[in-house]
């Protein structure tokens, strides 16, 4: 299972996560920050889980590209 976490309040809206993992991330037009799709919010930490291992690579790239290091991806 892939677990993706986004610490949304620190997002600077650079858009890289959307470019690298467009199926998991979208930019919010409301506040210009990244949205992790189908995620649950726990005190500003948005977490999404998926059984689809294919998404790991894209999210891992997004995590590495994030200039403010607010995306973490685990394959458990």
């Amino acid at each position, binding site marked *: 299972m892939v677990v993706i976490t986004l610490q949304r309040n620190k997002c*600077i*809206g*650079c858009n890289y996560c959307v470019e690298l993992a467009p199926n998991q991330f979208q930019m*919010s037009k409301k506040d*210009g920050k990244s949205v992790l799709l189908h995620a649950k919010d726990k005190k500003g930490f948005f977490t999404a889980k998926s059984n689809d291992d294919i998404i790991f690579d894209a999210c891992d790239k997004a995590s590495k*590209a994030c*200039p*403010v290091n607010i995306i973490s991806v685990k394959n458990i």
Partner: protein
Amino acid sequence: MQQIELMAPAGNFESLQAALDNGADSVYFGVEQLNMRARASINFTLDDLPEISKRCKAKHVRTYLTLNTIIYDHDLSIVKTLVKKAKEADITAVIAMDQAVIACARELGLEVHISTQINITNIETVKFYAMFADTMVLSRELSLRQVKKITEAIEKEQIKGPSGKLVEIEVFGHGALCMAVSGKCYMSLHSQNSSANRGACKQNCRKKYTVIDQETGFEMELDNEYIMSPKDLCTIDILDQVAESGIKVLKIEGRGRAPEYVARVIKCYRNAIDSLENNTYDKEKVVSWMQELEKVYNRGFWNGYYLGQKLGEWSNGSGSHATQKKVYIGKGVHFYTKAKIGEFKIDAYDVSIGDTILVTGPTTGAKEMEVNEMLVNDEKLLTGSKGDTITIPLEFRIRPSDKLYKIVENKVEV
């Protein structure tokens, strides 16, 4: 000579207060996103705007919101929100680079200042942006001679901004200069995927580099490995010439700097501008100001491109050349208003009579003074140590949120 507006950086409430206490005429700041210090952990939030506006208005200080990154489609809504909130909080102007921001601010009736990232280097461009903005920062690579030509043309051709007043020209007066073309840079983006143009500069130009011929492996002998790290800009020694170029606003860099940096730099430039005004600006004063400026963060100083400087003014270290540094001692406990005595709890190191202390806090700003009298746990002692409670007569009020530091000599490794 007309008085120059001194514009101070404010990264948080400590720095804002330090700017206000030391004579800034205006302050600039960012709120979370879409400013050149978006990465910094010490940014204001949107909810802070009314408090910033209130504090500055009380001192008749103008307020400028920086909204000067590149703007993507998904940012347009937040741009509108930021400008709207700035207008509601009665912020004086927004500093903009992107035409979308300029348009939005104009639509909502907020004054616009053109950021250095637009790279204005000639009078025709000034004329063009005069349709939208009252103040413009010129490109950093212009010499004072070129600046003067532009300000003279504004006067001669009566180039006016939307307010109906002549366009005002702003230049950088002090602080970090980098390799980038007037604030636009792709270096962080290329090497670390972190765009400076979105406020996420990783400052990798500040590191050591070597130059190697890939064909032969020959390594060029470099006297200084910091080949991409320019020294900091300082104009206090040429401020008379800067003023004569006809500029109206002098901007001090440093939204990421500590409050005591803002306090000291603003104080020096305030004195310098006032000295120009009353014709007491002289070499002796310049020497003492330079000594003061060297005490806080700097990479060594140069005059930038203002005098047509030859290249090669590189810093020779990764960090600061400051001659002083602060050491954390403890925190504020209580202030006895009538007696004007501050109580502090010492958490680390010690503090003695004769030491220079620094107190910083969101409302206190950055206040420095020498300890002449002190009680340690209610006894008259010369030194207080870790765990002790000390009381000191103070010229200013302190709060429980304040931090106490000691100012010590900084041994610079060059």
